[in-house]
C-alpha cells in the first residue's frame, strides 16, 4: 500500500522542509522542459529568476486561476492557467518568453490529479518554447479553499504594443474563430447538467497562430474574449477606444453544437468565455493580409470579419441581428445561468 504522502498532498508538502523539496525536485521540476530564460532559473531554486530578454517593450501580466471543475472537456486548470497568461501577453502584441507558476493546494488534494495538471501545463509551455523560470507551492488546510488555485505570471517582449484602446473608426473587427465553447463546456460541467454534449473548451495558446498576423503591422487593437465573452470584449474595446461598433450577427462564427446547447439552456453564445480566440481591430487596408496570415494556422483558420468600428454611438456596440433588426450588444451583467424564462 502506498503511503499517504504519495497519494495526497499534506501540510508537509508546503512546509519548506525535505518533503517539499522532494515534491519539487522529483515531481514538479522534471515535468517542465525549459526551466530558464537567463543565468538563474527554476533548477537553482533561488529566491528569484534572472532573465536575459531580447530587445523591445517588456509586457508583464498575472492571473490567478480558479475553475470548477478542475478537469473539464477539452482541458484542465493546468492548461488553462498557462494558456490564459500566454494569451494575455499575445493580445498585447508580445512574444511570451517566461512564466512563473504558483500553486495553492488544499490539504488532501490527490497527488495523481496534481501530476496530471502539471503535465498539461508543461505540455503547453514545451510546445511554445516558453520557459517556466520560478514558482511557489503552498498548502492550505482542508476546507480552506476549493481544491487548487494556480497563479501564473508572464513576461513577454513586444516590438509594438497593441492596446485594447487602439481601435479607430473604419477599422474592421475580426474574431479568430467560433465563440462560446469554453464557457459553455464549463457551464455544462459545473452545474452537472444532465445533457450530453460534444462541446469542448477551446483553450489553446494563441502565439503560433497570431505571430504572423502581428508581423503585418495591421492590427490596431486586440483582446482575448475571456470572461463575458465576445460581448464584453467588444464593449471594452469600444469604450476604451471611444468608438462605436457595428457588428453583423450573421457573420459571427458559432459552431452548431454550441448554438444548439445555448438554445436548450437559454443563454447567449456571445456572453460565454473563449480561451483560444482573439478579437482584433485591423486597419482596412491591411485586412486581407491579416486574414491570409490567420488562415494559415488551424487555430485561426475560421477567422472572420464580423463588423466595423464607426464614429457614431461611441463606447457602444450595435448588433445587426441575423433577422435584420438592430440592438445594442451589451456588457453582460455576470456569468450566464440556464433559464426557464
Amino acid at each position, binding site marked *: 500500500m502506498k503511503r499517504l504522502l504519495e497519494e495526497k498532498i499534506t501540510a508537509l508538502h508546503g512546509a519548506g522542509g525535505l518533503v517539499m523539496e522532494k515534491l519539487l525536485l522529483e515531481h514538479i521540476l522534471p515535468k517542465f522542459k525549459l526551466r530558464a530564460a537567463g543565468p538563474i532559473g527554476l533548477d537553482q531554486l533561488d529566491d528569484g529568476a534572472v532573465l536575459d530578454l531580447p530587445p523591445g517593450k517588456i509586457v508583464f501580466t498575472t492571473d490567478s486561476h480558479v475553475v470548477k471543475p478542475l478537469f473539464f472537456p477539452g482541458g484542465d486548470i493546468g492548461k488553462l492557467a498557462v494558456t490564459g497568461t500566454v494569451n494575455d501577453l499575445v493580445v498585447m502584441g508580445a512574444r511570451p518568453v517566461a512564466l512563473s507558476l504558483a500553486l495553492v493546494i488544499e490539504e488532501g488534494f490527490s497527488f495523481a490529479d496534481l501530476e496530471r495538471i502539471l503535465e498539461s501545463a508543461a505540455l503547453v509551455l514545451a510546445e511554445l518554447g516558453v520557459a517556466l523560470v520560478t514558482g511557489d507551492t503552498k498548502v492550505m488546510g482542508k476546507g480552506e479553499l476549493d481544491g487548487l488555485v494556480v497563479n501564473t505570471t508572464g513576461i513577454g517582449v513586444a516590438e509594438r504594443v497593441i492596446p485594447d484602446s487602439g481601435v479607430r473608426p473604419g477599422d474592421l473587427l475580426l474574431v479568430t474563430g467560433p465563440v462560446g465553447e469554453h464557457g459553455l463546456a464549463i457551464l455544462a460541467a459545473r*452545474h452537472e*447538467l*444532465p*445533457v450530453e454534449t460534444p462541446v469542448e473548451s477551446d483553450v489553446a495558446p494563441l502565439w503560433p497562430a497570431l505571430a504572423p498576423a502581428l508581423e503585418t503591422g495591421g492590427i490596431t487593437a486586440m483582446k482575448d474574449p475571456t470572461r463575458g465573452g465576445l460581448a464584453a470584449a467588444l464593449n471594452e474595446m469600444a469604450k476604451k477606444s471611444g468608438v462605436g461598433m457595428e457588428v453583423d450577427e*450573421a457573420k459571427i462564427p458559432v459552431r452548431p453544437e454550441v448554438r444548439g446547447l445555448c438554445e436548450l*439552456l*437559454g443563454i*447567449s453564445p456571445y456572453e460565454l468565455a473563449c480561451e483560444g480566440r482573439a478579437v482584433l481591430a485591423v486597419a482596412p487596408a491591411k485586412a486581407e493580409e491579416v486574414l491570409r496570415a490567420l488562415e494559415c494556422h488551424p487555430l485561426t483558420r475560421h477567422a472572420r470579419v464580423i463588423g466595423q468600428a464607426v464614429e457614431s454611438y461611441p463606447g457602444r456596440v*450595435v*448588433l*445587426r*441581428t*441575423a*433577422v*435584420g*433588426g*438592430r*440592438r*445594442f450588444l451589451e456588457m453582460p*451583467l*455576470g456569468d450566464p*445561468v*440556464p*433559464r*426557464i*424564462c
Partner: protein
Amino acid sequence: MSELFSLRNPEWAERFRGLLEKLRPPRPVRIVHVCGTHEITIAQHGLRSLLPETVEVLEGPGCPVCVTSTRDLDCALRIAERGAILCTFGDMTRVPGTRMTLEEARAEGADVRVVLSAADAVEIARRNPQKPVVFFAVGFETTAPGTAAVLLDNPPDNFFVLVSHKLIPPALAALLSAPPVEIAAFLAPGHVSTVIGAGAYREIAARFRVPIVVAGFEPLDILYALALVLRQLREGRAEVENAYPRSVTEEGNLRAQELLRRVFRVGPALWRGIGEIPASGLYLREEFAAHDAQREFGVEGELGEEKPPGCRCAEVLLARAVPTDCPLYGTTCTPLTPVGPCMVGAEGACNIWYRYAGRPRL
C-alpha cells in the same frame, strides 16, 4: 432545423416590416406581452427596431421568475438555510428576496443547485436519500405540469416541493380590470397557450374588449402576431387569434391540464410588485401534503408582509405611472438591486428606463 432558419429569414422580416408600417396605427399604441421568452426573442433579435414608431411593445408582468414574490423567495431562502438541498431554475437564483438572492445564499454556504427540470430535482433526491431535497417550483401553466408529473410518479420521501406556480389568464384580467387601461392589445404567451389552449382567453377578450393574439417565439412568429394585432386594431375588432397554430390548439394539451387538476388546487397568489391576484396561484392538494415543503419546514405563516412597500410596478405596467414616479426607482431599486418585476426583468420598463433614460431608437 431548417424550420428554425426560415423563421429567422431576414427577407421575410423585411416584408413584415413593410406590412407593419402599412398597418401603422395613427396614434401611439401600447401592446403588452407577459412572457420572458417573448422579451428575449424581441430583444435579442432587435425586433423593436423593425416596428412603426407608433407601436410600443412592453414587457408586462414579465416572467414567472420576475413575478415571484419576495415572500416566496424568503421561504426558499429559509428552507435552504435549514440544511435542505434547494433546487431551482438558473434564472431564479438571481432574483432577490428581502435579504439576498439564492445565489448569494449559496455563497454563504447553502446548498442551492441549478436544475433544468423538476425531474432533475427528483434525481438529486434519489442520490441524497439522507437529506431533504426541495424543488422551488416557479413557472406558469407551461412549467407546472412537470411538477405535477413528478409528484404523480412516486417521488422519494425526502423530495419536497415549494410551490410558487402562477396562472396567466387571471393576471391578464387583473391588469385590465382597473380602469383607465392604456393597453391596446396583448400578445399571449405561446407555450402557456400550448398547455391551456387559445380558448382560455376568449372570455377575457370579450369582457374587456381587447385583442389577444397568441404568439410563438421565433422572430417571424412575433412579427406575424403583431401584424394580426395591428389588423384587429385597424378593423376595430377585439378577438382572440392564434398566430402559433403549429403548437397551440383551441383546447390545449388536455393531458397536461389533467395532471394540473389532479395535483393542484387554485387559490390567490402574491405577484411581486403587483400584489395579490385572486385565483392566480396553484397549491398542492391534500393528497400531496407529505411532499409540501412549506409544511415540512414550518415556514408557513413565519413571514411577514410583502416587502418593501412603495413599489409602483403595477401602475407602471398599466401606464398610470412612469418609472421616475416611484419612490424606490434609482434609490433602493436599480438593475443590480432590483425590487419590482419592471426592474428584475432586463427589458422591464424600469430597467430599460434606468439604463437608457428612455428607450433607444436605433
